[in-house]
């Protein structure tokens, strides 16, 4: 059991997502940064879908009630395990009663904590990922406890090749979206030759961008959207749907981010810059 002493700013349990209910309007959810969960589950030799804690902006303070092995990844975070500083992308053995204290995130906005074999919280519609109202809560509260299995022997392998250099990337690789062809030369130029900055409105549902491009009057019937879909509103605003994003929408879908670009974008905060590159 992991006891939540302080939940941080917004911490939730996530796996790789809640699939197969999109036709009923249920968002996929799951970790925003798939690069981070892959790193953690590779280092801990977990299955790909083992769940992790996603900590946003400010990390949590947590007590491990049983022995296990843990790993942090994603955003750079100042963290201590029993008051000793620890690093991202490294596996640490933890004893029962150990306190993990995570502070501010210094680079990126989402840090992840994984334990050996993942957390064993009950699944709702096939996933542990928090998404209200599919799950009762949207985020962890003080004194919540999250179950995991005891593990007292695990051989830690070489961990040297894991870095967080993707946090520095600002170029998002994109594919053409279904309505890409509606774009005029002027709009294309603005889209690919200028930088955009992240708007205040950025969360697990969507990232809005501050800079508008020239608007349009195209109307279409509501159709499916995906995490990473870039919606183009009539006023010229760009909205990038993220993991908790709605499953359908009526705005033209002009670009589609690659999985990797979604992870890169999910680590950006208000005012930070990004640009698009067609692949």
């Amino acid at each position, binding site marked *: 059991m992991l006891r939540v002493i302080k939940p941080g700013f917004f911490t939730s349990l996530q796996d790789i997502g809640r699939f197969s209910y999109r*036709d*009923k*309007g249920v968002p996929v959810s799951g970790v925003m940064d798939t690069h981070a969960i892959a790193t953690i589950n590779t280092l801990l030799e977990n299955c790909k879908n083992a769940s992790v804690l996603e900590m946003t902006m400010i990390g949590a303070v947590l007590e491990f009630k049983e022995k296990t092995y843990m790993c942090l990844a994603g955003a750079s975070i100042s963290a201590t395990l029993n008051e000793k500083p620890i690093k991202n992308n490294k596996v640490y053995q933890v004893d029962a009663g150990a306190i993990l204290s995570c502070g501010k995130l210094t680079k990126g906005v989402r840090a992840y904590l994984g334990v050996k074999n993942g957390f064993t919280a009950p699944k709702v519609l096939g996933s542990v990922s928090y998404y209200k109202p599919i799950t009762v809560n949207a985020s962890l509260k003080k004194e919540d406890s999250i179950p995991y299995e005891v593990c007292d022997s695990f051989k830690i392998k070489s961990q040297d090749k894991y870095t967080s250099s993707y946090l520095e990337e600002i170029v998002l690789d994109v594919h053409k979206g279904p309505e890409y062809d509606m774009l005029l030369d002027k709009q294309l130029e603005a889209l690919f030759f200028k930088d955009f900055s992240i708007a205040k409105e950025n969360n697990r549902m969507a990232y809005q961008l501050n800079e508008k491009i020239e608007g349009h009057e195209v109307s279409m019937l509501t159709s*499916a959207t995906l995490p990473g879909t870039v919606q183009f509103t009539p006023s010229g605003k760009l909205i990038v749907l993220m993991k908790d994003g709605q*499953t*359908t929408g009526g705005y033209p879908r002009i670009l589609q981010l690659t999985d990797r670009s979604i992870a890169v974008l999910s680590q950006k905060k208000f005012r930070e810059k990004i640009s698009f590159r067609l692949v």
Partner: protein
Amino acid sequence: MRPYSIIIKPFGERAILIEWQQRVEETILDDILQFSEYLKNNYLAADDWELITAYNSLTIINRKELIKQEEFSLLVKKWYSEKEKIVLNDKFLWRLPVCYDVDFGIDLLHVSNVLGISILEIIALHTQNVYTVYGIGFLPGFMYLGGLPKTLEITRKETPRLKVSKGAVGLAGKQTGIYPQESPGGWNIIGNCPIPIFDVTKESPCFVSVGDKIKFYEISKARYDLHTIESEVGIYKIEKQKINA
């Protein structure tokens, strides 16, 4: 011979979009649902694939692997050309109770003023038609319903409400629908349905599927309270009727 020409478009690394003509038409929706059913039964296993139908489109998403767009697009074309007319899974007409009391229908007066018809006429019109579910999205269990009488078409509210109650029944443009959960929203609220549209505790959490039909009927406040309790304890039986031949 297929009755429709379809357009296939890549949609990122792991999805493909198939579009029929940009029209809200039941024969188009049926063709899409038949094709979707055919694919699920023959080629696209549920473990790997998700298929989402909305109005005039079918989106196919692979959960596990990236799609080779050109190859897959050719396959989809072939599958569409070979598809036979298949019998669809059962489709249902769901009869849902709505209480149009002004306590719930907080915009009834506004709608009545704008459209120049009485509240009684609004209720009569709203309960008279059978609506088709053209899509489910926006929120878990939110149905996009087609078939609203023209007289009830009204623009959405200029400023959306921060909170619309769970079960609220609204009007906006050519659409009517039910908010399956509390949410912000800009629709004109004319009533409330006491039956939960989405219930995570059930194995299939949403009883409605795209292609189903909905008919509303008016209930009193007393009956609303009764159905609310019946739903909570799990003894309310939703009225349904098979509709496919």
